[in-house]
């Protein structure tokens, strides 16, 4: 016997779950439509270069790659790059700008066996091209949050920040590689901080283990730069969860600041400002006030003013419940301005549902004209879990009505069922109704009426 399991790190969805997925996807399309977004479809695979152009060929190890005609292709890991390729190709010239697109589709990433991640997953996203002002970010955030509420996930955390402050704090003439190293470090630092905050409230064992792995990296960094100071990891014993959550961000900050200084990436005062800004979080007013103190007299004033404008616009959409996090852990090399993320509340594990932001440089990178762009995408599968946890969409039974018939009665029942289907009644025919999938069971009587629970109804009455 041939036994063929599904490919590693993929899964099947049975009707009940598949129906729920479809419904939530439909809801996404509906919400996008309320804001004038229209669907786009692109191929499921692209030339590898489309995905390696920004991040370098190292990214290939995270893709599912195949060859045809001596060319190298990858199954798409996300949908923003394909949309940008489309925009860069000039195919949108005859379309009215700004362009409002939405998409839903399968994406693919290679992940280590046993990592618990799926190699095929679903993304749903919005992209708004050619809209430079802060209303673009606000509209995307408004649509994203409306969608969440519409599928019963009203309880979420929205964080807004900007990568503009980092871009503007770094000297204009900094070496590109140094720049991306620093941005990479800041990204890492932000994620460490985020996880530590998470650990402090939850004490989660898995998080604790992961952070200890991060700590090993911090040790290596400190050793390389020969850091000596109050936050040297070597001085500290193994820490329990509470102590680790408190100390690790400081150890990481020290390692990074020391590395930047000794490798001469940036001046010490700039390093100090980068770290100080990355710590800021709170209400809009608090953060802006503190950030002004740090950024006074730097070029980053403008980025801060932009963040303020975006947040104001978001509030005008009635979205008032958000936190401003300047050290938001979102691809600093991808985005160019405001960024945001939407997560489960900390009490529910804090998983990321989705995120987005402004990425003005990307379309140009693919050979198009310089185009302002804002977008966001949802991790659909994570979101689906949340939908289910919040009671789910009510799964409908397969049949509204099942006409039980056999032998000579079958042909009349089939004809009646077709008439009912014409009127939108989901109807089954057969000798025995499948109880789990059937809402009501009926039988035809001699006059062509349907008898349901002892009551005789005409086809007209049934379809009402």
């Amino acid at each position: 016997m041939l036994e063929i399991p599904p490919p590693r790190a993929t899964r099947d969805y049975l009707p009940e779950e598949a129906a729920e997925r479809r419904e939530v996807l439909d809801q996404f399309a509906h919400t996008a439509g309320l804001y004038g977004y229209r669907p786009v479809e692109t191929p499921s695979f692209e030339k590898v270069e489309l995905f390696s152009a920004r991040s370098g060929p190292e990214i290939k190890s995270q893709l599912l790659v195949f060859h045809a005609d001596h060319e190298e292709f990858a199954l798409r890991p996300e949908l923003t790059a394909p949309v940008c390729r489309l925009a860069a190709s000039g195919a949108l010239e005859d379309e009215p700008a700004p362009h409002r697109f939405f998409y839903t589709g399968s994406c693919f990433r290679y992940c280590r066996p046993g990592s618990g991640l799926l190699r095929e997953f679903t993304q749903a996203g919005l992209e708004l091209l050619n809209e430079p002002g802060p209303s673009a970010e606000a509209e995307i955030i408004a649509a994203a949050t409306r969608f969440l509420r519409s599928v019963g996930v009203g309880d979420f955390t929205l964080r807004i920040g900007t990568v503009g402050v980092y871009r503007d704090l770094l000297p204009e003439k900094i070496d590109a590689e140094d720049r991306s190293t620093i941005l990479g470090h800041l990204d890492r630092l932000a994620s460490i901080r985020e996880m530590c905050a998470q650990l402090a409230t939850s004490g989660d064992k898995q998080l604790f283990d992961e952070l200890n792995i991060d700590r090993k990296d911090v040790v290596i960094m400190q050793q390389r730069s020969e850091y000596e100071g109050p936050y040297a990891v070597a001085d500290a014993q193994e820490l329990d969860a509470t102590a680790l959550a408190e100390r690790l961000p400081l150890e990481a900050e020290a390692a990074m600041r020391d590395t930047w200084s000794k490798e001469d990436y940036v001046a010490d005062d700039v390093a100090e400002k980068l770290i100080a800004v990355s710590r800021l979080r709170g209400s809009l007013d608090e953060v802006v006030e503190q950030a002004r103190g740090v950024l006074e007299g730097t070029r980053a004033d403008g980025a801060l003013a932009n963040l303020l404008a975006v947040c104001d616009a978001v509030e005008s959409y009635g979205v008032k419940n958000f936190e401003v996090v300047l050290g938001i852990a979102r691809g600093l090399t991808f985005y160019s301005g405001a960024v945001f993320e939407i997560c489960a509340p900390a009490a529910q594990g804090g998983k990321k549902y989705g995120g987005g932001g402004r990425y003005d440089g990307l379309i140009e990178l693919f050979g198009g004209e310089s185009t302002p762009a804002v977008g966001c995408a949802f991790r659909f599968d994570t979101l689906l879990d949340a939908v289910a946890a919040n009671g789910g969409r009510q799964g409908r039974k397969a049949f509204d009505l099942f006409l039980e018939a056999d032998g000579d009665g079958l042909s009349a029942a089939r004809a009646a069922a077709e008439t009912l289907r014409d009127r939108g009644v989901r109807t089954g025919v057969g000798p025995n109704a499948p109880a789990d999938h059937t809402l009501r069971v009926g039988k035809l009587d001699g006059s062509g009426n349907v008898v349901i629970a002892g009551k005789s109804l005409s086809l007209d009455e049934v379809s009402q």
Partner: protein
Amino acid sequence: MSQLRLALPKGSLEKKMRAFLEAGGIDPKGYADGSRSYTPDLGIEGVATKIMRPQEIPYMLSAGFFDIGISGLDWYQESEVQSNVEDLLDLGIGRVDIVVAVPQAWEDVNSPEDLFKKFVTSTGTKPLRIWTEYLNLTEGLIRRHTDLEPSLYSPYQRLNVERRAASPIAIFHSFGATESKPPDDGDAIVDNTETGSTLRANGLKIIHKVLANSTARLLVNRRSLRHRDKRPLIEKVRKALAVGVPARREEEPVFGHI
């Protein structure tokens, strides 16, 4: 009981490899310790070890002469043995990039596209001469960027009826010191580099990475992996080596919005 045959790399990887084995609690007697022997003793019962050049190890594994071996990702890919040799573990050491490099003076050439355009579409009669030890990786690169079949200059071409017919692109089989060939005897090279400094010192610049982050890998013949007696031994070696692999958290992919 059948023995497991293990191939360890000779050459630049030796020292790092030795430190790696030691970190995993293996004392490799006769490996990278000044001994002239080619058969070190790892002290693991049932495992017979031999030192081979890293270039030879992947296809020796593929042919079944060895069960398990350590070589670079570059030679694993160059040898085109993915169908029956598995890449079991990334040891994270001996990192090199396989790159395309051309003379620094060529300001108009900054990508493979530029390079092929410069030679193939120009009306000159001279072919583009690419020197390399990585014949297959280089051919793959040419095929991906052009519709042309390159000609090959190698002492071995008569063994395999290779083409020497005039093609606008010619691969020259290099046996080392590849960076010295351009500009007189070649136009471009495909070679490995750790930092790029040797290339720069020889007046070359990198225009493309054919294979980035090639590191040492533990490679295994797939049939050996299914062998009842060999499998536990392979697992033992893998576990010992895994100890030395630097801890690395699964990094968030830097893709798109999420």
